[in-house]
């Protein structure tokens, strides 16, 4: 490169450096904006995952009314996903500790391992510490709406999903009606009978408890 001999060489060099620095500054500014946008997308995604992991459904609530003469009397109510009450039952069972049995069906399971991304929870039966599960009260009839489990109503399922739910529910119902265990009917499915532990934490009479189902398959009992 040739420069004029009148002392302009220094100015041209400064201008060159200025343009280079300015280009880097503008480029850096634009990249920072892009990085911030990508970062926001990542944060939104992670927050969504966190919310999903903490999400819960409450298909069943119950209240122990009395424990007398070796029997436990309780009222049980079922709800759909929007919180609409579907049915209510009041009954006595022999024993002192109530067991609320839920069936967990895997969704989008990995066929190789039986592992699943999430689970659907169906109220299955009620039994006690003195009454075997096989002799417990089945709950399927309380929310069977023409083959579709109404506790899962209130969400827009695709026809394929609806069919899969109906098919799994129907298989579980048939097994239970024949006096066979419905848990394990679908690969990766299992049962979870949540209950009070008499020596540790008893359900107080007159207090409403809810059965909380987590997306990863865990079931909890919490005070409503």
């Amino acid at each position: 490169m040739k420069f004029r001999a009148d002392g302009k060489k220094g100015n041209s060099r400064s201008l060159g450096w200025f343009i280079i620095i300015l280009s880097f500054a503008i480029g850096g500014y634009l990249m920072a904006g892009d990085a911030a946008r990508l970062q926001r997308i990542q944060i939104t995604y992670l927050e969504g995952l966190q919310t999903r992991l903490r999400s819960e459904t409450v298909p069943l609530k119950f209240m122990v009314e009395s424990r007398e003469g070796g029997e436990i009397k309780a009222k049980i109510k079922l709800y759909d996903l929007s919180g609409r009450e579907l049915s209510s039952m009041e009954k006595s069972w022999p024993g002192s500790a109530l067991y609320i049995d839920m069936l967990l069906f895997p969704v989008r399971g990995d066929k190789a391992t039986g592992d699943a991304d999430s689970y659907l929870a169906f109220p299955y039966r009620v039994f006690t510490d003195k009454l075997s599960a096989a002799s417990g009260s089945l709950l399927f009839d309380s929310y069977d709406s023409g083959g579709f489990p109404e506790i899962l109503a209130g969400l827009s399922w695709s026809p394929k999903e609806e069919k899969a739910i109906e098919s799994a529910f129907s298989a579980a119902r048939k097994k239970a009606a024949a006096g066979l265990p419905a848990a394990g009917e679908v690969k990766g499915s299992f049962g979870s009978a949540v209950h009070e532990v008499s020596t540790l934490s008893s359900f107080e009479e007159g207090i409403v408890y809810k059965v909380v189902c987590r997306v990863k398959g865990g079931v909890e009992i919490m005070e409503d």
Partner: protein
Amino acid sequence: MNDKIGAVKAILYAISDAAAFLFATPLGIVILVAVLVALASARLWSAVSDRRLAVKAAGEDFGRAAALGAAARELASLLGKAAAALPTIAGVVLALVLVLGIADSSRKVDEYVAGQKRITELSTTLRNLERRYKAVEVRVDDVKDGRIAATLSFFDYKDLKAAPKTQAIDIAGKELFIDAIVCNFDYSSIASGSAINLAIPYRVFSDEVPEAEGVELSLFDAAGLPLMYRRSGDNVYGISSEAYEARLSELMADIRTDESARKEGIVRSLYGDAVHRVAKKGESFTVWVEQTGGLTIKDSAAF
């Protein structure tokens, strides 16, 4: 050092915000123009007043035309001075643009750093929530004549080389129930990693044998700690294994006394959970403690 940087940033942001308000918002521009007009008016008023006093002192008449002429001359003088100061004004504008740019970039860097911190926190939270711990491994040895023969394995995490403690059970039925006391801690404790949900399997029963007639499990060590929650020194991060075991003992005491746990506000839910599955000969499955809450059953590797 951070305090000094913070102070510099505060000044930078104040100048930047003021400049952005004055030059880039309608209200700021109105205020700026109003101030300039007020200053110019005051200057013109002062010049006309001075001229009137001088003219009256000379005994001459100071009419409206003379006043307008004086004001016009002063205005022309002001415009001339403004034109002369143009390079300085341009310099100030350039400096303000630079300050705005630096302040904006600095804010973007701060936001980026805060975003990275948030991502790290969320990732840690997710990792803690997605975690699960093995509670029991069940192997169904035989299913015959309406009875289930199974072997349950409990793992001692304090001594990983030791063979798991096992218990063989034989019970009437088709479906095996593994009953456990479950203690789910508050989400904030789980998310921060300061607590893990606990499950203590204590009984096995079946679809035909009620819980009251089930088989007791023995998976506690001599100190009454469940084997699965014991840890060797290498596996306890941040605290000594003695302190860990002391804290675990406290937790076990908390669990045994429901009221004290609730008073401490650390336990979200405390209840029993009997997870169950149909027993099939040769199959094995594992009961896991989910950190989002509750227990699950997963298939183990075929044997």
